[in-house]
């Protein structure tokens, strides 16, 4: 069956991003009251995309000629002279996995949104933006051209902006949307520069192009041959620039500040965009262009940079998450931390491990966000965990799904995919020849992950209810619960394909035939790592249980940990002051500059304009007056003069015939005298 489908794939593949984009375009023209129709369109389009993506996935399962399946298409977009700009799509295990994950998770989040956004007035527009986002994200993952990827990348950023600022009447939401867009813009600038550099050096922007593509050996060797400033090769320098782009989109330190604030958007948006998919785009970019990063062999500079940045991010975000009190903010920092993990994996050479963690993370982070949304919905829009408590009894189904997600994220052993994916990452970091630092930082971050997730679970679901208004929380409707079940099942089932005993996923990504080998689990190195992971999880959960076992019933009481850590707690709560730093160092001068220009305009230009305006007005009045007096007046006086003179002249017409006759006689005689005189 797969073989029959393959010839149609080049055309069929375009429909995967096209369907949601078209749905989004149609929804843009629907009036607001047709919200149900919009939702149906969006879900229907996404369902179609999902089917095609799964079919494509099946096609890639049969590796051809010993290497992984790859099908690249390209078409000429436009030409300048002899140079043609080409774009296209590529289908290989990496893009197939991403496409399938995006469509699948997005589909269930769409279903969830029907329930969650039920009371929203702009229901239809929400689904329009979501469709736009899905279409753009699918273009990112399927793209064969760095240019097309960049364009879709920007579109994704735009959709994110519109969705974060969905409740645009709230000033916090509008500010958060702006912050997200501008911060990712910094990264996008570097991405663009890297792209231009690569194009200039190699003359192509296609990834795979019959041997001439960017990721193919011919171009890669040529890129490695040219060195630029700092002794870096072109590929290393461009890769570093691309890394900065990925840092912006995936929220690595220091371009992470937008992600916690992006929680101002509706919860389905947080789940889809800021947990599962868009933030994964940066990780995907590095994974896709990994050959450029690894060009030259061994431990290259871009990979080292990626590993360290990822490790620092993972630890930083985990520390900050400890001290947060907003249920979604904890999850946001957790996302930042997990993205750091993925970056560590990419830097230390475990691309497959990073992708496995990405996909698993998509499932359980989306699950956690949707469960958190369910909790918020049930607690009547309360988001502060200090004011929740004891929800286990009131919302049992949500508790179960939340617990699955939490355990997956913390890395509960064996059953959950998170355990295996994190273990793979630690393994790759451990065997990295570039140093032990990322491994240690990542291990510490994993410990803290377990700690803060347990803290959140205890404070939200256990103990006595702390808020009086929360005394009647209710369970969510099934339209919101079914997606939770599906995602929970996925989080568990994915574990099956990621264990060392049967590393199907990793080998599929790498293009090797899969083999089932339970003995691999018994290897001493593997056992040591499994033991370490178990220890980390137990320590983390145990410590949190100890501290938060009996939370006080007073919602205003300080956190038990705050007393022990003192000033450090406040530092962590303020996210280590990054926002304040940026505010002072960057926003401050810019605002001052803007204020100076505004003052310049208002104090100098506007008065100048006013002066000019008054001059023109005066001139106009003067010309008007001169026209009045001169032209009009002159003409009038001329006419009056004529009239007067005519009047005085007509007074000579006395009316007496004799007078006239005398005049005639006199005149005639004068004429005759003249005649005689002249003729004489």
């Amino acid at each position, binding site marked *: 069956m797969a073989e029959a489908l393959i010839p149609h794939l080049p055309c069929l593949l375009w429909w995967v991003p096209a369907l949601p984009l078209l749905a989004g375009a149609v929804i843009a023209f629907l009036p607001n009251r047709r919200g149900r129709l919009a939702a149906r369109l969006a879900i229907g389009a996404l369902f179609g995309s999902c089917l095609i993506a799964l079919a494509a996935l099946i096609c890639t399962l049969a590796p051809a000629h010993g290497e992984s399946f790859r099908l690249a298409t390209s078409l000429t977009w436009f030409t300048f002279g002899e140079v043609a700009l080409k774009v296209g799509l590529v289908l290989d295990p990496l893009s197939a996995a991403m496409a399938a994950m995006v469509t699948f998770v997005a589909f269930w989040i769409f279903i969830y949104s029907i329930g969650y956004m039920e009371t929203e007035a702009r229901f239809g527009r929400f689904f329009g933006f979501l469709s736009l986002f899905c279409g753009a994200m699918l273009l990112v993952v399927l793209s064969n051209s760095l240019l097309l990827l960049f364009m879709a990348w920007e579109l994704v950023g735009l959709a994110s902006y519109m969705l974060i600022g969905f409740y645009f009447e709230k000033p916090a939401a509008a500010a958060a949307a702006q912050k997200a867009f501008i911060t990712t813009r910094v990264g996008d600038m570097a991405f663009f520069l890297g792209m231009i550099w690569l194009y200039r050096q190699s003359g192509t922007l296609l990834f795979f192009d019959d041997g001439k593509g960017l990721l193919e050996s011919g171009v890669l060797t040529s890129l490695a041959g040219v060195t630029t400033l700092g002794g870096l090769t072109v590929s290393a320098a461009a890769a570093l620039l691309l890394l900065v782009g990925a840092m912006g989109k995936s929220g690595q330190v220091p371009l992470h500040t937008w992600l916690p604030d992006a929680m101002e958007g509706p919860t389905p948006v947080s789940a889809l965009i800021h947990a599962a998919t868009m933030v994964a785009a940066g990780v995907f970019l590095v994974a896709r262009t990994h050959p450029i990063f690894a060009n030259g062999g061994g431990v290259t500079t871009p990979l080292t940079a990626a590993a360290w940045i990822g490790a620092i991010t993972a630890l930083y975000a985990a520390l900050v998450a400890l001290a947060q009190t907003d249920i979604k903010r904890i999850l946001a920092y957790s996302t930042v931390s997990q993205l750091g993990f993925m970056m560590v994996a990419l830097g230390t050479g475990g691309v497959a491990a990073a992708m496995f963690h990405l996909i698993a993370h998509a499932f359980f982070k989306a699950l956690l966000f949707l469960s958190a949304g369910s909790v918020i919905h049930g607690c009547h829009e309360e988001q502060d965990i200090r004011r929740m408590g004891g929800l286990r009894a009131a919302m049992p189904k949500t508790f179960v799904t939340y617990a699955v997600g939490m355990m997956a994220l913390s890395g509960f052993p064996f059953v959950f995919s998170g355990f295996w994916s994190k273990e793979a990452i630690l393994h790759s970091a451990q065997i990295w020849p570039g140093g032990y630092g990322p491994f240690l930082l990542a291990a510490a971050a994993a410990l803290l992950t377990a700690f803060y997730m347990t803290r959140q679970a205890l404070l939200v679901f256990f103990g006595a209810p702390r808020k009086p208004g929360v005394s009647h929380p209710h369970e969510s409707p099934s339209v919101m619960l079914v997606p939770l079940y599906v995602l929970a099942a996925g989080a568990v089932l994915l574990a099956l394909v990621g264990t060392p005993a049967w590393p199907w996923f990793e080998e599929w990504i790498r293009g090797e035939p899969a083999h089932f080998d339970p003995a691999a689990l018994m290897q001493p190195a593997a056992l040591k790592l499994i033991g370490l992971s178990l220890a980390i999880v137990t320590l983390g959960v145990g410590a949190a249980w100890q501290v938060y076992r009996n939370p006080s019933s007073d919602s205003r009481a300080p956190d038990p940990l705050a007393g022990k850590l003192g000033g450090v707690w406040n530092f962590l709560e303020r996210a280590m002051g990054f926002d304040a730093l940026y505010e002072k160092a960057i926003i401050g001068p810019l605002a001052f500059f803007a204020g100076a220009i505004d003052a310049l305009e208002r104090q100098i230009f506007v008065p100048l304009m006013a002066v000019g305006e008054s001059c023109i007005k005066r001139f106009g009045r003067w010309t008007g007056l001169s026209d009045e007096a001169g032209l009009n007046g002159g003409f009038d006086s001329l006419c009056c003069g004529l009239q007067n003179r005519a009047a005085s*002249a*007509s*007074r*000579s*017409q*006395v*009316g*007496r*015939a*004799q007078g006239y*006759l*005398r005049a005639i*006689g006199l005149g005639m005689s004068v004429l005759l005298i003249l005649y005689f005189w002249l003729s004489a």
Partner: protein
Amino acid sequence: MTPLALLLTLSSLLFTLGLLAVLTRRNAILILVGIELMLNAANINFIAFWRYGPPDPDLTGPLFVLFSIAIAAAEAAVGLAIILMVFRHTRSTDLNRLDSLHG
């Protein structure tokens, strides 16, 4: 002085006298008198030239005078009729009172 010169001088003086009457008289009828004098002077002129000027077999002089007399009569009749009409309206023959066509 030849007769012709004498007659021409006579007619000139008559004409001038008639003109003076027209220009100075107040009574409309007496102005008509002046007009008749002027016409008469012109007639004398014609006859003088016929009699003492170059010979003229066409009888231009007398014929012209004939017509002139006829027309003078017609004009005197109409003029007097008009004066009488005006007299009926304004009860006066003073020409200076007929100045309503003034400027």
